[in-house]
């Protein structure tokens, strides 16, 4: 519980620093102080369209994440466990990885609608993160652990379930915290650059209407959403990884 208090303290400290900076050095016309942003944020919380937008954004995030996790884990294990596949595809993957999906949006519009493109944006970016974390996690599998499983003639699947998967899990825990944020950020981007309905589009609309206080209020709330998702990811991680050194140490601290 001390952890929760410290986290709140950190947020409060950052908020104070922002307030001071915004009041002393920046013009409230375009960087409004928190004292203006917070009431606006509270007002938004009472508005139905805010919740509708949040719902849409979270739905995009959820669908994108599920696709990314499923496809990423599958691809990661396939690439990591079959060296030939890995070697044959690595150059192609290295080529595809840095291609920014944003550039391809006009082409994607030909076959998908804006909502689908946003989901795709989320899924693709998170997919890469999951794949690479799995690939690196697989390299961490202990030799003796594998030899033990092989000696007792555990099959390939059993080895994955009992040995490889638990080793990769901490890497996936890191991935999970990364991708919940990336997913939210890209769901917003979908709204910002394409107008896909949701929080991103609301932020865009506030910007385009010169409503910087409203925009900052939305950013504040979106960040809050990010914190919420992160907490969920951490909770999942602590449950799944209770045996892991890092979690053990945390429990002591």
């Amino acid at each position, binding site marked *: 519980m001390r952890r929760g208090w410290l986290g709140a303290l950190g947020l409060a400290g950052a908020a104070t620093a922002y307030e001071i900076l915004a009041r002393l050095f920046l013009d409230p016309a375009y960087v409004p102080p928190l004292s203006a942003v917070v009431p606006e944020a509270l007002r938004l919380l009472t508005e139905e369209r805010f919740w509708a937008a949040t719902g849409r954004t979270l739905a995009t995030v959820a669908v994108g994440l599920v696709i990314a996790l499923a496809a990423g884990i599958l691809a990661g294990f396939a690439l990591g466990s079959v060296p030939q596949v890995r070697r044959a595809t690595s150059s192609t993957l290295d080529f595809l990885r840095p291609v920014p999906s944003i550039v391809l949006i006009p082409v994607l519009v030909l076959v998908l609608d804006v909502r689908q493109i946003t989901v795709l944006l989320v899924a693709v970016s998170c997919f890469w993160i999951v794949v690479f974390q799995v690939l690196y996690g697989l390299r961490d599998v202990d030799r003796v652990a594998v030899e*033990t499983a*092989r*000696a*007792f003639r555990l099959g390939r699947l*059993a080895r994955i379930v009992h040995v490889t998967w638990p080793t990769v899990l901490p890497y996936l825990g890191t991935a999970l915290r990364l991708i919940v944020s990336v997913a939210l950020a890209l769901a917003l981007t979908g709204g910002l650059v394409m107008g896909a309905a949701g929080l991103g589009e609301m932020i865009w609309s506030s910007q385009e209407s010169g409503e910087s206080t409203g925009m900052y209020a939305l950013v504040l709330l979106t960040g809050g959403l990010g914190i919420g998702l992160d907490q969920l990811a951490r909770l999942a991680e602590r449950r799944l990884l209770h045996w892991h050194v890092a979690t*053990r140490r945390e429990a002591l601290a």
Partner: protein
Amino acid sequence: MTSLLEIAGIGKTYRARERTVEVLTAIDLTVSEGEFVALVGPSGCGKTTLLKIVAGLLPATVGQVRFGGRPVTEPPPGLGVVFQEYGRSLYAWKTVRQNVELPLRHLDLSRARRRELVADALDAVGLGAAGDAYPWQLSGGMQQRVAIARAVAYRPRLLLMDEPFSAVDAQTRADLEDLVATLWKRYGMTIVFVTHDIDEAVYLSQRVVVLGAGVSGVQADIPVDLPADREQIGTRSSARFGELRTRVWTQVRRTPESEMV
């Protein structure tokens, strides 16, 4: 007795950028079905390497291992292993009970039978109360005993043990020795047992194989003609036991250890 394991002309060289070591040359050894062979030799002579080759976990540089007549290219069925690195061979994400149970899960056993095997094995190594603990909550000796329990519960046809009692106290060690001896007799297992304790090698085995230091082949192969029924105090104080241990000692000391101070 038919021969279960034929090790023919095995040689092993580890090659790496920094360092190439020729560890084993021309190892020839045959182990019969149901035999209990102890393997002794100085630290770093290649005992673990040989065990891993026999288990089909490491390819030999030259030579061949046959198990039940078939060349070994992967771990043969019915193999149980206790690794020297017992700590790393336990899964941190599984409880003690789950660790012991894992190899049993792909055998054709009822769930109740599996539970029973696991419970018996844990009781046998004195860890009946630690089933729900995780390996990292155990002392070194306790971890080693979990690894032993896992192999024992599996009832393997061939059991390879690499210094399995190195981390336990003298009393426990004696108890575990008797446990292994009992199981060996009861289930007719074949056991290859690496140890640094020459008394233990003689006490347990039917044959002590001595590996030499440096690039080594089999330096000596000493049959242990003690009566089948052995017992810690009586057997160890018998005259024949004394003679045999001296014989093994002499062989072990004969290995050139020029490096030692």
